[in-house]
């Protein structure tokens, strides 16, 4: 396949392939190294979409150079991935948030609900105290 490609096509393909590999590696490295799940989910979702787009452009360039025609059905993978990747990320984030809240409720109901009750209870006397404090002078 690489015998009859001109020099500019080889250079463009090499740059696209190296970029795709770099982005895929960056995404998985971010998934491996970042501290929390909510920061971990950003890395592969963004970087894998960009890597797949680079590979698809490389396929289109190869087909256009070797067969002298425009192959558009490779864009289907990139289009599909652009649609489905944020959907999966949003579902996973919602599931993680729901499970986190459920775990916190299971751990300590009193320590979770006590600040809200205390905050709601303490807001009214402060206003009353401020009103009464402003009215007494």
């Amino acid at each position, binding site marked *: 396949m690489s015998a009859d490609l001109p020099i500019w096509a080889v250079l463009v393909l090499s740059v696209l392939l190296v970029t795709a590999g770099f982005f895929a590696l960056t995404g998985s490295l971010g998934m491996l190294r970042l501290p929390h799940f909510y920061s971990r989910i950003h890395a592969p979702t963004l970087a894998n979409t960009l890597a*797949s787009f680079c590979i698809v452009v490389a396929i289109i360039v190869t087909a256009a150079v070797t067969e002298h025609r425009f192959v558009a059905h490779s864009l289907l993978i990139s289009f599909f991935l652009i649609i489905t990747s944020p959907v999966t990320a949003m579902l996973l984030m919602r599931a993680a948030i729901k499970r986190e809240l459920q775990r916190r409720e299971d751990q300590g109901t009193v320590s979770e609900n006590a600040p809200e009750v205390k905050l709601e209870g303490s807001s009214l006397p402060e206003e009353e105290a401020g009103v009464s404090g402003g009215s007494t002078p």
Partner: protein
Amino acid sequence: MSQILDIALFFALGCFVLAICMAVYRLAVGPSMADRVLALDAMYINGMLTLLTLGLRFGSSLYFDIALLICMFGFVGSAAMAKFLLRGEVIEP
């Protein structure tokens, strides 16, 4: 001149394989269940990219169809697992 393309192809394939290995590590030691679903999501996308690169290397169009199937069914699997984590059941009555 084709040596540059071969080097770039092997670099891309090595990067994808390394990314799959990192996803396998996150799949094994992930602290929560959502981490493991995210690792599976990254794994199928990297496998799809590997297949696309192999199709570019060997000049065959069969790899493209397999990659499209992996893309579609991988999304269905990830969405089903995320829905299971969210609701407790996949198909709601």
